[in-house]
Every structure is written in C-alpha cells, then in structure tokens.
C-alpha cells in the first residue's frame, strides 16, 4: 500500500466531516457526504496496491494468469460496489431534500426541526 494515499484519504474524510458538521444548507451537507464517500473509495483502492504490479485483468498475449504480478482485485470490487450504492443513496437523499424544501419552503437545517406540520 502507498502511505501517502492512505493519509490523503483520511484527510479528505476529515474535510468532508468538517463540512457536514458546519454547513447549514442541506444540499451542501449532501455534497460533503459525497466527499466523505470519495475518501473511502480512495482508501479502499490504495489498500490493495502491490509493488510493480498491474491491473488485475487477464488477456492472453501479455498478461498470463499465474506469472504476472497484479494488484488485489477484491478491494477494487468493494470500491465499485460502494460507488454504486452511493449513487442510489444520493438519489434517495436528494428526493427527500426536495420534499423538505417543498414542505418547509427553506433549506436551512436550523429551521427544519418540527416533527408535526
């Protein structure tokens, strides 16, 4: 694994967390949540790196299974799964935000506090 990528992923995660905690706009909080998700993708892919290795896709002329060094493919599959789940979660969160904006007429998170109409 490459240390600088792991440290960068942790810093990116903390940046996103700071943005979620200090923003008042709901859409900006969602964007910072996306930044946190990107930090986890970077962390996952940087975990699976091996030295002097190439992409884990085998095709016959150049890459032979069993003789070529490849990186770990499991972390890449995990990152792809997380990206795809994040897309659907983002769509659902956006639809909820649209309903909140339609009901409360504001996107400020300090005014969206009531549990009844």
């Amino acid at each position: 694994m490459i240390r600088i990528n792991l440290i960068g992923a942790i810093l990116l995660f903390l940046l996103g967390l700071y943005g979620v905690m200090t923003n008042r706009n709901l859409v900006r909080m969602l964007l910072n949540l996306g930044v946190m998700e990107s930090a986890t993708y970077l962390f996952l892919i940087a975990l699976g790196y091996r030295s002097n290795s190439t992409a884990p896709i085998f095709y016959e002329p150049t890459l032979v299974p069993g003789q070529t060094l490849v990186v770990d493919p499991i972390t890449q599959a995990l990152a792809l799964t997380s990206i795809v789940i994040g897309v659907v979660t983002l769509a659902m969160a956006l639809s909820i935000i649209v309903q909140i904006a339609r009901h409360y007429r504001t996107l400020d998170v300090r005014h969206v506090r009531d549990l009844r109409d």
Partner: protein
Amino acid sequence: MQPRRIQKRQIETRVEMTVMVRMIIRSLIPIILVFGAYIITYGHLTPGGGFQGGMIIVGAVMSFYLAYGYNIMRRFEEDDLDLSEHIGALSYLLIGLIGLFAGVSFLSNILRGGAPGGLLSGGIILVLNFVVGFKVATGTLLVLLILLEVLQKGTPKQ
C-alpha cells in the same frame, strides 16, 4: 348573489424539472442501462458483477424519477416487481440444484470450456450474474418505490 367563496391560497409547485434536465436525462438513460448490462455481463473478468450492475440499473431509474417526478413511477406495479424478485431467487436455487442433480454438488460448474479471458470462461458465474443482477435491480426498485410512495403521501396504501 352568492357569497364569495374564500379560497385557500395554494402554493403551486412543479413536479418536473426544467427542460434541460429532462433532455439530458433522456439522452443519458440508454447509455447508463447499457453500461449496467456490461458490468453485469463481464463480472467474472473485470470488477463488477451482478450486484453492482443491478444497482447501476436502479440508479438510472432513480435519475428518471428525479427528472420527471413521482407520476412517472406509477407505471411500475409493486406486484410485478415482487413477482420478478421471487423469480430471480428461485432461478438461483434452480441453477444450483441442476448441479446437484447432475451428480457433483450444489452450485457446481457444469458449463466448462471457453478460452481463458473470454466471455464463456466463467462457466456458471455468467448465468448467476444475470440472475443476481435481475433480482437486485427489481428488489431495490421495489423498496425505493415504497419509500417514494411514503414520501408522497403520509402512509403507504395497503
């Protein structure tokens, strides 16, 4: 003369997004669907597989909902999606049982052959990817549709 009826001031909100968003979504949805099918099909060679491709297909349908509002999602019947999910689960079970009846074991590879690196080199994984992608897409779509229905009104209709 009739007394003037006091009308409640109604806030008119538009359900659809602007024409630019709708046009872009309409031109992007076939590309996203084909990309989801590619991720499902080449799951044994490149990162991806059934679950990831199914969620990409659900992502395409959700972007359709975001552009057009809830009225277009009424075309999906909950009973059809429920039946499709059950068919997907039973197909997975039947493919596993084929291996059991062939005498080897449950979920054994009975489709041998194919060049390494080719499409048929995965054996039974190719068929299982299709089944899992179908089940994940219909199941997740069913759950999200119920959630959207609760968002529209107060409670889901029984």
